[in-house]
């Protein structure tokens, strides 16, 4: 553990926020409030936060459809994000896009829009990395991808192109074992996605996706190398998907035992325990952080409830520039 204490606590706070945000949106979705798709990130807090925490100013990120905290970590105000999830005019996206799911780009926040067919965004990230290289920018692109999406043609073309052009891209595969109802052990032609990296002449590594420091260490290193001009790399973080694919998924393909097994490890609780052991967190602080996060969420929800519905002009403007 070579991160300073404040950064460790940062990581923890973001993970708590990711957890609470997810539970909140889950409930809001079932109230019919969310004008977006919702795919739970429960259990993937370490993978999301550990990777995103390695981004620097000027880097670009294509987030996963699972997990909302990356947007906050990139600087999006929580109210904007929540109002955007509600599809409100004043929120991020103005009611046009499925916030937190796909197409959520913002040049100023270093977010690249991902189009809705999972895996299609990887090549866009490669293009952004190409631009960074051509413009001599000291930056890199972090591209989230899942194990299911890793089979897409674009993904392979993107990795090949990134490798031959030696662009500063890091391909971050969160392997949670499932592509909706299809197991990774069935759909992936390899045991570990990282072994595919060699097929493109790239370095590839698999880390324990439950452990935020491991994830962070591997992604940081890869991003640093990329920024320094060493070319792209692949990092795979292995977890188990806690939830069903979505709120509507009856999960007929998984047994109760498997579900229990998936939830056996809790990355937030694990990291919490680690920090408590190290004396960096007390019970009171845990409570305080939790309360503050929840309060921010509640304030965001209240803000979103009070926002207005987008109108026809919000719909048809901005299709073309100027």
């Amino acid at each position, binding site marked *: 553990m070579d991160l300073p204490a404040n950064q460790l606590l940062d990581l923890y706070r973001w993970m708590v926020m990711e957890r609470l945000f997810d539970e909140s949106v889950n409930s809001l979705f079932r109230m019919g409030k969310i004008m977006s798709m919702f795919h739970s990130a429960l259990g993937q807090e370490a993978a999301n936060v550990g990777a995103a925490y390695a981004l620097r100013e000027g880097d670009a990120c294509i987030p996963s459809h699972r997990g909302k905290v990356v947007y906050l970590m990139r600087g999006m105000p929580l109210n904007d994000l929540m109002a955007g999830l509600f599809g409100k005019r004043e929120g991020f996206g103005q009611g046009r896009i499925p916030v937190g799911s796909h197409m959520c780009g913002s040049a100023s926040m270093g977010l690249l829009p991902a189009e809705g067919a999972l895996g299609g965004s990887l090549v866009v990230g490669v293009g952004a990395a190409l631009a960074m290289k051509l413009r001599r920018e000291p930056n890199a692109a972090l591209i989230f991808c899942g194990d299911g999406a890793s089979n897409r043609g674009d993904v392979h073309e993107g990795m090949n192109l990134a490798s031959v052009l030696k662009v500063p891209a890091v391909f971050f595969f969160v392997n949670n074992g499932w592509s909706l109802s299809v197991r990774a052990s069935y759909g992936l032609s390899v045991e570990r996605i990282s072994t595919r990296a060699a097929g493109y002449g790239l370095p590839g590594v698999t880390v324990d996706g439950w452990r935020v420091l491991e994830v962070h260490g591997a992604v940081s290193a890869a991003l640093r190398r990329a920024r320094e001009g060493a070319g792209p790399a692949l990092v795979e973080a292995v977890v188990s998907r806690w939830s069903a694919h979505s709120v509507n998924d*009856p999960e007929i393909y998984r047994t109760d035992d498997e579900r229990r097994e998936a939830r056996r490890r809790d990355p937030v609780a694990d990291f919490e325990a680690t920090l408590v052991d190290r004396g960096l967190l007390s019970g009171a602080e845990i409570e305080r952080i939790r309360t503050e996060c929840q309060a921010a969420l509640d304030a965001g929800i209240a803000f979103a409830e009070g926002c207005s519905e987008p109108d026809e002009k919000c719909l048809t403007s901005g299709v073309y520039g100027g």
Partner: protein
Amino acid sequence: MAKLIRVPALGIAIANIAINRWLVKPGARVARGDALLEVQTDKIAMEVPAEASGALLKTFFDEGAQMAVGTPLGVIGEEGEDISDLVAAVEAELRGAGRDRDQAGRGAGASAGRAASGAPRKILATPLARRVARERGVDLSLVRGSGPGGRITEQDVADSLEGPQAPARSEPRGAEAEVAQVIPLKGARKVIADNVASSVRTSPRFAIGIEVDCGRLVALRTRLREEFRAAHGIDLTYVPFVVKAMAKAVEQVPIVNATARDEDILVRKVAHVGVAVAVEDLIFVPVIRHPLAKTLRQVARELEEHIALVRSNRLGPDRLAGGTITLTNVGVTDVDVRPGVSIIHQPQAAIVTMGRVRDRAVAVNGEVAVRPMMDLSFTYDHRVVMGVPGARYAEWVKRYLEDPESLTEAEGTRAGGPGAEEA
């Protein structure tokens, strides 16, 4: 403040849900975020959290009820709050939704009924033609369309503003259930159809009948027939005699040789007699010009030529033009010619129908005799020809036919031959 809870949108494929069970008793308090009820989508049972805190003041549906996303479920508010207006509005909404569902089923039947009763008559015209017609005050039903399918084009509308109005189109009848054949209304068939329809619309008609004693006509014809065949290769029928009789009778009653126009009646001096020729089930009316200036033989020959040209589809428009009165012969058939209304060949004012010469028992000088008789029918445009002149004309035609030698005296010696001036 009471909050109306509706069935939330629970996913992109979810249109309907069923209520499994309410998780809060009516009247009990619930906090926002607490589970309010459990619903069943087609995939999974799901808890719906309360979106407001308060007491569950009203539920609109019970366990087992099925409904669409957006349907009102219940009301959360404060105990004792008056929500009667809200409830009434919801109940009205739910009643209206039920009505809409019933009416959706009936709507389809109504429009089918309308279609079956037959669409109104339509005129085929290009949009541009319609606009120009509208702007120039032209009645499209009076414009003849020259485009494909008889479509009226802008040029047709423009033409109609200069010349006489052509017959209007009617919509072809819808096919009957047991259709033997569908004959396209095109070309000559179409022109005929248009013409007869328009003629009937144009001319108010009356008819007069007269019977002609053909004793002397039969004898004369018999005598001339062999000569004509041997010397000229012509088959002499009664038609040339009637043609000449008609033309000669016009000199006595010229009003039948006229045309009604908007402001006046144009009476022509010289009769040019059109004689209808049937081919298949079409009719053409080539014209014998100046029959009085021609010999019987010339008239007979011209008639034969016309028949040959029509039958071989080589009749040119020049032969069809310029008729002033028309004869139609049904004598090739067995039908009786009774005084009946026929279709006038516009823009003429009279048409004569002749039939077969047949033996008939008639009274001659108080005794019954069998005489060869021919019936003639005269149909007139009543705007031009009144009853008395119409009858007079018929009498003159009869007189000439009963004195047929008078029709042959003008063999080549008549003043005013072809090219004689006319009105």
